[in-house]
């Protein structure tokens, strides 16, 4: 039974860490723009925005 002395704090700590992480993510705005994040992956990093735009529009069709 002595193992509980470690296990319970460990369980609480892990759960608490998850909770803190979730709160941080919310405060940090990770859930602000869910659709945007999905779209941003399609944006090319090229300087020529014009070229990039037409390519993306085609790839989206």
């Amino acid at each position, binding site marked *: 039974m002595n193992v509980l002395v470690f296990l319970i704090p460990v369980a609480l700590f892990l*759960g608490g860490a998850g909770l803190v992480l979730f709160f941080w993510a919310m405060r940090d705005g990770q859930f602000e723009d869910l659709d*945007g994040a999905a779209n*941003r992956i399609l944006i090319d990093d090229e300087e020529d925005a014009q070229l990039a735009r037409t390519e993306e529009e085609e790839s*989206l069709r």
Partner: protein
Amino acid sequence: MNVRMNLAADEPIQLTDSRFTVPGMRCAGCIAKIERGLQKVDGVDAVRVNFSAKRVAVRHDRSLDADALVHAIGKLGFEGQAAETNPLGQDDVESRMLLRSLAVAGFGMMNIMLLSVSVWSGAGGVTRELFHWLSALIALPVVAYAGRPFFSSAAMALRHRRTNMDVPISIGVLLATGLSVYETATGGQHAYFDSAVMLLFFLLAGRALDATMRNKTRAGIGALLSRMGKSARILAEDGSTTTVAAADLQPDMLMLVAAGEALAADGVIEDGRSSIDNSMLTGESTPQSVGHKDLVFAGAINLSNPIRVRVTAASSDTAIAEIARLMDEAGQSRSHYVRIADRASRLYAPAVHTLALMAFLGWMIAGVGLHQSLVIAIAVLIITCPCAMGLAVPAAQVVASGALAKRGLLVKDGSALERLAEVDTALFDKTGTLTMGEPVPQIDRLSSEQKSVALALAQASRHPLSKGLATALEGGGIRSAAVGLLSEAGGEGIKGDWSGIPVALERTATAGEGLSTTLRIGESLVAIPFLDPERPDVAETLSVLQALGVESRIISGDRQAPVGALARALNIKGDSEMRPENKLALLESLKAQGHRPLMVGDGINDGPALAAAHASIAPGSASDVSQQAADAVFLGRTLITVALAVAVARRTMRIVRQNFGFAIGYNVLAVPLALAGLATPLIAAIAMSLSSLVVVGNSLRLARVGNAP
């Protein structure tokens, strides 16, 4: 990644944040275009697009004002509006709090369950006591934090001497927690922390789902008055001009309105001829030509020539402010609508309270003692706590709204679905709702040479018809011809020079039926008619609505002739030349006759009607105001989604009623067990999860709507 900072600033400059709503963003290309384009504007430090909210946050130099940025966004090809500075709406705050509470309740539930399972499986003595203390240590802060939404709502209801779903929940949770603390302190056998926290978790899940659904489709803030001109240049008697804010304008002032500016007040034209875009007020996109002594309204956009306008009504007296007020008042009546969950709880809550009280009194009389009686009463409260009921409505509604979203209909909240299910009359606006709302030029008869000249001219013009023409021609893969010496005259058209031949796009001389423009190349003239085509499936939609028992009719602000023709073609009733007040009056009379009208419209002139109707839907091309006033917005070219919305809403309500039936059936089975004192916390917990799962499972059947026709 996509945000680049200008690090080269030598001295600290005063930076400020502005937000703009840009409803036209649709793809990744738009994000890149806006972020990169605005980044190039002088004085802009950082740009971040929020795609979900269709919003752009710009960090910029103080010297750069909002109008300049809106202009820059316009040059990138998007329509932008300055949004209110506070980016967090009330709803957003609420859903964040619910999510936090849900996370905390989830954390508490898992840990307490861990401890409870070992107690159930036979841990005794010191271990049990330790586990109970640990549970209490976790549960007390969790209940205090995660229970707030329920406690505050219950307190509010009690303060108004009413009762709602949250009252039995709060009493159940508080009593269970209180008794568990007592049990723990006295070393008792059972503690109910797990039940209390699990209850909170399930109920919060339902609430959070509901709030998420609301927020998803609600973007853009307070658009109506932002459309109105914010300031005007005033010509004083001595000939000097000053800029006066819209709120400070007074009747009898003389405004100078340049081409492209929005009017800040209602007035009469003193000097100049121009054409104005009055679509704000009338919903009709055709530019109107105005001259001396004509009345013009705030919010109209002056398209071609500078005009001088004598103010007749300013700030809160303008026609558009009047519409805003009408909408506000109309919306109030709808807020009296009682959600189905609250209607159920009106019957449910008193019944449960009485039952628990009777159980307590009954066992007291039977002589089992205060403690045992209290335990049984709490068991009754917890078991009947509307866990499945709390989920019954939001689960079905969230699944249904997700399925509808896939089909291009965005429903704002659950109450909208409930009201949509009840409609029996559908009122359609004409322009922009039954029709596409954008005049389409008929370019089939033009030769390719004429097309390329027309494109060159149309591209150079600011006139809305020209813009439509340019879009149609560009879509056809036409390259513009080399036309020079372009000049545009308001009300006349645009002319230029095409390798020595004078060419022009001008007003058609004969004012026949409908819109048209004339293309002149040298001496040859060709008319390009513009038609506003009906949506392709209007007839089909109306017949589906008919099959659902919904009667349709047209109420339009347009002239008698086109409205009558369309109404005859569709074989429904049609009212024409309806002003916003008339539409509102018609709706009120329908409501007084006991009908539940559904309003489908797009213009700002439909705003009050949209807000007053029992339920309302606006097309995605509608003005922001209409989209905000409406319960749902449909995207794309087809109208059938309107009929689909009504059908799905009705199916959703069927599922909701089934869910209620199930939740009540479960209570009928479980309550006798609890009353008899046989319900242990283990049984209560299992029964509760099981009933919730069944309700969610039943609701998921609605997801198939997304695939079925």
